[in-house]
């Protein structure tokens, strides 16, 4: 019974932790531009994160290696270093986007100047990172982030044409603006599979000392948690498609995202949407900051992890502090956080194959995995997604340019 309870709590945290600024931006923008037509791309993205999160969690539980331990052992120093630099570049952009997103939501809540709120966001995040135990961080932000479920209620209240919604789950490209359509496909898959989630997830599994007996929890977290997290993405796209597309509103501001909940549900909808976004994006900021420090610590063999107290893993601590400040400085220049978000998602797609290949190799290595190696299902999905990622990675930058970042 205690176990079931723990699994349920883990799943709840995974749902709340799934959505970040990238999901919010791309799902509402795709809904506002193409209605429900791109729901299938979210399904592909969610399938990808489930496949690789489960694999990374299993590798962590059985072989006690986190992602960048495996990257370096399997790819060697040189290719591993390239993967590390790419991952850290993407992480930095993601951190900047999330910190900017936190300030944007705070601005919608308070009306205070954006730059002052950036400073407030930096201080609040630093305090949480410095003081809060690992298990608390994961839970608190995941649970309160569940307020985003208000978008599921909003989607239903907006009475979308459900037959048309259903058709959106079938892949097709009936549009005269293929570049923009393709750009959103890349964005939706990238936002769902954003790499920091997997770095964080696998490192967290090692920190919490997962063993093969925890593989059930791993599978439940990955499959149920991320599927339900994907439902939040559907809800965002469907409600944006039902409300913003007919009005011709393009969601360049997070305010129009909140509007999607406010119109059908009033004040309470607005508040739940903003609180949910605040905690989901803050949680993502924290996870991505840690992810950057995990990667560096694992690649260079430092002490890493929050379970060793701050001074117990000093280089890890200094790394997350530096990455948080660098991310803050990027958005402090005044660059639009929504623009940074889109770039972080597109570049993450480019960096993903280098992360996932070594994980797939290790998950198939019996010397590491014993009888817990990949089965046929794991490999079919693993290889399929690696192929998808390579194609999407090759198309990402040309589509970014051809579509003028989705502006057409």
């Amino acid at each position, binding site marked *: 019974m205690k176990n079931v309870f723990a699994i349920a709590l883990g799943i709840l945290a995974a749902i709340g932790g799934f959505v970040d600024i990238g999901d919010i931006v791309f799902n509402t923008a795709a809904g506002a531009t193409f209605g429900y037509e791109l729901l299938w791309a979210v399904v592909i993205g969610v399938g990808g994160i489930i496949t690789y999160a489960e694999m990374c969690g299993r590798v962590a539980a059985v*072989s*006690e*290696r986190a992602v960048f*331990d495996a990257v*370096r*052992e*399997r790819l*060697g*120093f*040189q290719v*591993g*270093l*390239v993967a590390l630099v790419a991952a850290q570049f993407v992480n930095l952009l993601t951190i900047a986007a999330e910190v900017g997103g936190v300030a944007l939501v705070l601005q919608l809540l308070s009306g205070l100047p954006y730059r002052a709120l950036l400073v407030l966001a930096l201080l609040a995040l630093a305090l949480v990172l*410095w*003081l809060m135990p690992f298990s608390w961080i994961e839970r608190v932000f995941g649970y309160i982030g569940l307020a985003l479920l208000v978008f599921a209620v909003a989607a239903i209240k907006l009475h979308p044409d459900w037959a048309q919604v259903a058709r959106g789950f079938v892949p097709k490209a009936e549009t005269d603006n293929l570049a923009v359509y393709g750009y959103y496909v890349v964005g939706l898959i990238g936002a769902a599979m954003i790499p920091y989630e997997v770095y964080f997830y696998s490192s967290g599994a090692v920190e919490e000392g997962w063993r093969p007996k925890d593989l059930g929890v791993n599978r439940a977290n990955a499959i149920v948690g991320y599927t339900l997290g994907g439902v939040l993405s559907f809800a965002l796209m469907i409600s944006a498609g039902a409300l913003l597309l007919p009005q011709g509103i393009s969601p360049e501001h997070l305010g129009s995202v909140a509007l999607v909940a406010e119109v059908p549900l009033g004040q309470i909808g607005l508040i739940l949407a903003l609180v949910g976004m605040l905690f989901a994006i803050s949680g993502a900021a924290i996870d991505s900051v840690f992810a950057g420090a995990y990667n560096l*610590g694992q*690649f*260079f*063999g*430092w*002490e*890493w992890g929050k379970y060793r*107290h*701050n*001074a117990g*893993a*000093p*280089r890890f*601590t*200094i790394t997350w502090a530096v990455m948080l400040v660098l991310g803050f400085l990027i958005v402090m220049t005044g660059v639009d956080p929504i623009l940074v978000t889109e770039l972080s998602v597109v570049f993450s797609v480019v960096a993903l194959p280098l992360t996932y290949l070594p994980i797939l190799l290790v998950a198939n290595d019996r*010397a*590491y995995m014993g009888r817990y190696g990949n089965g046929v299902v794991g490999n079919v999905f693993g290889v399929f997604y690696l192929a998808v990622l390579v194609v999407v990675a090759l198309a990402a930058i040309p589509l970014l340019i051809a579509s003028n970042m989705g502006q057409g």
Partner: protein
Amino acid sequence: MSEIDLGLGILDHQLVDSAGHHCGKVDDLELEGVRDGTPRVAAILTGSSAWRGRGLLGRLAAAIARGRTVRIPWEEVKEVHAEVELRRTAHELRLAREEHARRVVERIPGASL
């Protein structure tokens, strides 16, 4: 000791000292007896200047990091599994590179949280 592939089984693996602390990676290996046909690992090399043996990017990274190399004689290795376990502490093996960073972090209130 059972047979292991040096490239995949030891190189780039995590070093752990006798107190259970992470203390770097196996950045390179020193082999001996290659010429007389009975090669064996004489020592593990760790530290940023050991990256020089790891290709062009390794040389570049070593030049930027400008650190030192610590040589750990193979006799100091207790066991090789996912991690390479050492018989002594990082401090005794002159691997304790986190001390400087630790003193910086310790100055901030709440460092032991």
